[in-house]
């Protein structure tokens, strides 16, 4: 009680006022306006001046004093926002459209969107290409020197890395795909199955039934 009365005689020092504003802004669940601060502080206090001091004090620190509308509040420094999240990694399979688009780019690079669409026979959605770009599996190649100068897509080193390839040339060719049974979905005539048709290359367990 007497403490409160004492406070009314002389306004607290600026340093003390700074402590007060600091504590109030820290503890308040909402930003506090100048008026809020004044109402809570002893008479004669000058929160406006103190806010400026405090703002400077927190400059470059992990939290900053920011203005939110009429209010003032502490907030995490934007460059540290990444500390405020925890990552949960979820593995998902690529959509069929994405994997096909990726395959076409890998086999035909550099390739334009129109060419991809021609090969797939359907339009390529923007999302599909964006997804592959975001995964850093494809990137823009040089523009094609044809009318409209369309951009081309090529696969990246990240792509090669992910698929365990030294270069895009290491991708199995059409002949190998055929030999691997990937191009032909009907069983080959009996006895004609190529010797290197090992389980590793075989698409599904089904053909393994017929392995020696």
């Amino acid at each position, binding site marked *: 009680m007497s403490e409160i009365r004492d406070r009314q005689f002389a306004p607290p020092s600026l340093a003390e006022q700074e402590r007060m504003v600091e504590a109030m802004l820290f503890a308040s669940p909402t930003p506090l306006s100048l008026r809020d601060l004044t109402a809570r502080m002893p008479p004669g206090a000058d929160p406006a001046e103190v806010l400026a001091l405090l703002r400077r004090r927190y400059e470059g620190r992990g939290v900053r004093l920011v203005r939110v509308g009429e209010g003032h509040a502490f907030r995490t420094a934007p460059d540290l926002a990444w500390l405020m999240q*925890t*990552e949960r990694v979820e593995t*998902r*399979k*690529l959509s069929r459209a994405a994997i096909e688009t*990726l395959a076409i780019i890998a086999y035909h690079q550099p390739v334009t969107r129109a060419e991809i669409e021609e090969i797939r026979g359907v339009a390529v959605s923007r999302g599909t290409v964006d997804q592959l770009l975001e995964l850093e599996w494809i990137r823009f190649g040089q523009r094609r020197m044809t009318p409209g100068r369309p951009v081309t897509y090529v696969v990246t080193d990240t792509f090669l890395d992910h698929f365990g390839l030294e270069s895009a040339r290491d*991708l199995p060719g059409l002949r190998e795909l055929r030999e691997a049974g990937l191009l032909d*979905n009907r069983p080959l005539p009996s006895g004609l199955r190529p010797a290197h048709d090992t389980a590793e290359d075989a698409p599904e367990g089904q053909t393994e*039934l017929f392995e020696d």
Partner: protein
Amino acid sequence: MRPPVADPVSPEDRTPGVAERLAAEALIVDVEGFEGPLDLLLTLSRTQKVDLRRISVLQLAEQYLAFVNKARALRIELAADYLVMAAWLAYLKSRLLLPPDPSDAGPSGEELAAHLAYQLERLQAMREAAAQLMARDQLGRDFFARGLPEDLRQVRRVSYAASLLDLMQAYARIRTKDEFRPYAFDRRDVYTMEQALERLRGLIGFAGDWVDLLEWLPQEWEADPARRRSATAATFAATLELAKGGQVEIKQTDTFAPIQIRRKP
């Protein structure tokens, strides 16, 4: 705050006057404010106005017993705890008053009294500690946490996986689109394990001796290599199934040697 405890009344005073009755009732009503017999003892001990270490346990026991008698006179039911304590204190009192019995190996009256004094001191100490604890600055009252916590956001990062095989299959699918049809399993050339099991169950009865597995393939499956492989695999799987069931035995003398089976003797 509870009112001061009335002077102990000796058990002989059985006819209390109105004033005494009222005083006693006030005391009894207050019983419910006590946290058990130890608390009551602690309160009674304060009337001695001495340090708990120098308290007269004998006097305390008498005060307590008087209190309990009073409650009885007023037909107030005391909880078992209070009565058991009363019995114990009556025993303690007799131990303190009578000369020690040399044949008694138990603790002396003084030891028991010292322990009771210790319990009272300890309870008192805990009360003071509790008061000190509650007098401390407390979170949400005297000091505060951040009022606007910035929640830790759970960010879901999706990692897409695709294998080289997926890629190749996807490409193959596109390149063969015109002739693409969903993979249909060609049943004509597949000999199933169920078929083989059925066949073996029929034959096993005759196989007292070792028989080469291949001899048991159905004849119509032997000519075509693909069909023969399927039949071989199915028959082999079927024999394993039968061996598991304890119906046949299997042997192979060497790697890649013919696999032989016979009915389990």
